[in-house]
């Protein structure tokens, strides 16, 4: 497994590294193929959101704020939107072991686009929409740069969230556009609501924790909704669990991603996984196939017992001579396959594609 040093690697440095072998903070080896993997990008982007907040706050506090107060919001919002968009794209690059330097111009373009859109959205909402939508005292409040308010800023959060989805979407060639647009907007709004709740009168009126909450929640929801870990980062494996030839394993997927089928039996030549006949495994006992959409299935090829076991479910795949085709069932990571009555057992498991 990973050493602590690997786990605590410097995020920025590793995000820019080309092919590495020792892992990073966003590390596919740390993300098993379980439902939990959907949270991984959430944690990653949340960490970035939090750090962006810390950087912006440090700039505000330590540097002389020579700009006009009305710029405070646009600086914070643009930095968060840009930082979170960058985190999403850089995180993907790290998971795919891409050289970020090689495609840095795309990364830069996506981040710049996000920042530009967030900036335009901020000024549109505060200077155009608010002026048109409100009148009298509300109009004065709406354009008051020092007023702490969600009412007059809600659109700023939504538009900035949308921008943070649009930048990575462009880089991903508009794949998953719905997730990016809706997820990005939702993330911005969720961040705004977190910011509001943490600074709201009666809940502390504290814009310190509110700022941290903004970055954290925005980043987390963005990572959760906009870009989940695709299955193509994983490959299916068959692994022997029984005593004889324990831990032998073979990958199901072809290197080029084309559909493929692997055979298990005691035939000594040409099969993908050999298991001894004395364990009641027949010459061609079982095959596991993967189609072009990376769906896995097991097929029983012998009259001997062949069973797939999973939680509260047991499927018999023994060959039925009356049927023209063998019985088959879909496989999920963690399924066990029993071959014969000799205690031979296989496990189907999804592992990171780079697992050797």
């Amino acid at each position: 497994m990973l050493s602590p040093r690997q786990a605590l690697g410097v995020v920025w440095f590793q995000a820019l590294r080309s092919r590495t072998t020792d892992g990073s903070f966003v590390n596919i080896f740390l993300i098993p193929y379980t439902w939990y993997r959907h949270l991984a990008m959430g944690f990653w982007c949340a960490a970035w959101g939090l750090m962006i907040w810390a950087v912006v706050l440090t700039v505000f506090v330590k540097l002389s704020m020579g700009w006009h107060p009305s710029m405070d919001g646009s600086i914070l919002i643009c930095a968060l939107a840009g930082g979170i968009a960058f985190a999403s794209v850089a995180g993907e690059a790290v998971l795919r072991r891409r050289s970020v330097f090689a495609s840095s111009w795309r990364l830069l373009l996506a981040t710049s686009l996000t920042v530009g859109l967030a900036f335009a959205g901020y000024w549109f909402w505060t200077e155009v929409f608010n002026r048109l939508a409100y009148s009298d005292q509300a109009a004065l409040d709406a354009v008051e740069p020092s007023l702490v308010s969600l009412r007059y800023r809600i659109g700023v959060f939504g538009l900035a969230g949308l921008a943070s989805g649009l930048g990575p979407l462009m880089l991903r060639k508009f794949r998953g556009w719905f997730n990016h647009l809706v997820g990005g907007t939702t993330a911005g709004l969720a961040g705004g609501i977190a910011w509001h709740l943490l600074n709201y009168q009666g809940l502390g009126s504290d814009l310190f924790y509110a700022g941290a909450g903004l970055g954290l929640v925005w980043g987390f929801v963005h990572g959760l909704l906009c870009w989940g870990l695709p299955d193509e980062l994983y490959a299916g494996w068959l692994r022997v669990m029984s005593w004889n030839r324990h831990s032998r394993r073979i990958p199901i997927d072809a290197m080029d991603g084309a559909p493929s089928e692997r055979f298990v039996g005691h035939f000594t030549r040409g099969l993908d996984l050999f298991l001894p006949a004395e364990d009641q495994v027949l010459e061609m006992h079982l095959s596991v196939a993967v189609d072009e959409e990376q769906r896995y299935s097991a097929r029983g090829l012998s009259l001997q017992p062949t069973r797939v076991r999973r939680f509260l479910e047991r499927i018999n795949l023994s060959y039925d001579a009356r049927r023209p085709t063998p019985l088959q069932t879909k496989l999920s990571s963690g399924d066990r396959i029993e071959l014969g009555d000799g205690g031979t057992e296989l496990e189907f498991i999804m592992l990171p594609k780079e697992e050797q």
Partner: protein
Amino acid sequence: MKVWLLGVAMAIGCGGDLTHIPNSTTRVARPEVVDGTELELRIFTDERECRAKVQPEDLHLCMPYVDRANGEVRLGFQLRLDGDAFPLPLSSEHIKVGHLGRELQGSGVNKVEIVPHDPMQAPQLFVLLIDGSSSMSQKRRMEKVRKALLMPEVVESFFPHDVKTGVVVFQFTNGTPVPLGGRLQVLENRRQFKEKIRNMRPLQGYTHLYDAITYATGEFLEQQAIQDLLTQFEMTPTVVALTDGFNNMAAGDTCGTNAQRLSTLLKHLETVRSPETGIDPRRRPSVYTVGLGRPLRSRFSMPRDAGVGVTPRQLCGKRFLNRRIDGDLENRGIDNASLEWIARVGGGASYVRQDRKGLGKAFKSAAAARYHWFEARYRVPSFYLRRSFRTTLRLVSFATGEASVEIHPSAWLDAPPGERVQGGWSRQRPFRAILLVLLPILGLLLTMSTAGAAAYHAKRAMFMRVRRPKGPPQV
């Protein structure tokens, strides 16, 4: 489009006249000093000015500070006359603090405090007015006063080592107060003072307190010899009046009859302290009052709109309005309402004490050091700090002075909130406190990132998916 871009460019490059407060996300505008006041009330907003005016260890207290989480605002200020610092013994009664155009009362959820800094002894002429009426001979009251005045710290306050001061002691009963010992003498050193005080004895008669204060702040100070003394040594007159009861001029006096007399005294005090007299603020008297005994109206508080016109009901309340002083009220307590009123208009403070130590502290406070600069701290519900606000400081005693400053906290972010310390006020945390938020959350996220893998492998280990079976199955 061009106009819009121009506006954006101006916003980026132009913070106007606002000054950023270091270690915060707050900006302040240039303070506005109200014209036509005698003293310039200078609110500190510039770090360089703070460095020049205050001790290095107090630098962080000098700059404005807004703690929105705790609803607190702090401003450092100094009073100046002709460009030089004008030290004063200010407390919260002497400065009115306004927030968003409303004067804060310092009660309920609001709290106001004036914290003095950099004490210094100023040349002063202390005029002690000691009650010599018959009642002072009862319950060893005069002895308590004598012992209190002879306490080393009180003597030290009246005669500090490094500055020239003088003390004149009067006793009052009927009519004009008489100098202690029968001859007017400005006591210039501790030995003379102790000698005089040791010989102080009660006299006989009524208690013409108001007349005594009127004399000490008027006719007495106008004497040429006293004027010369004040001018020669640049002394400021400070009147300290002590009584054990009420202003009582005749046997039939009631509490209510004092209202008109008190109004007359207050008008006189207002006049002698008014800028319109043209008297140098340094020569204007301040009046401190000390009551020996327990207060008759312990729950008395000055009316909000208190001026110099006092009604009998305001002074005595409903209960004591028509009660006689002689033989009745004077036995119940002392007229703390009058004393407070006099001190308020007289620019001093009022103390009511029952024992020697308490009296000693009161005298010491009356002869307190003056301070170079002050902090005005106030607390309001944090709701009122959620947009730019104007804070106004107005001097209501000693002289006139007023200034205000517009404060602009950021609408988006705050520095770490202050931590509550002794005294109930919060202290600014260093910015590194951000790590207390940043590191635990980042650590949690890191842990959560690896928790999935940890749980997954633990589960596999528990369900025997990792270990090799111990042998072939027995069929």
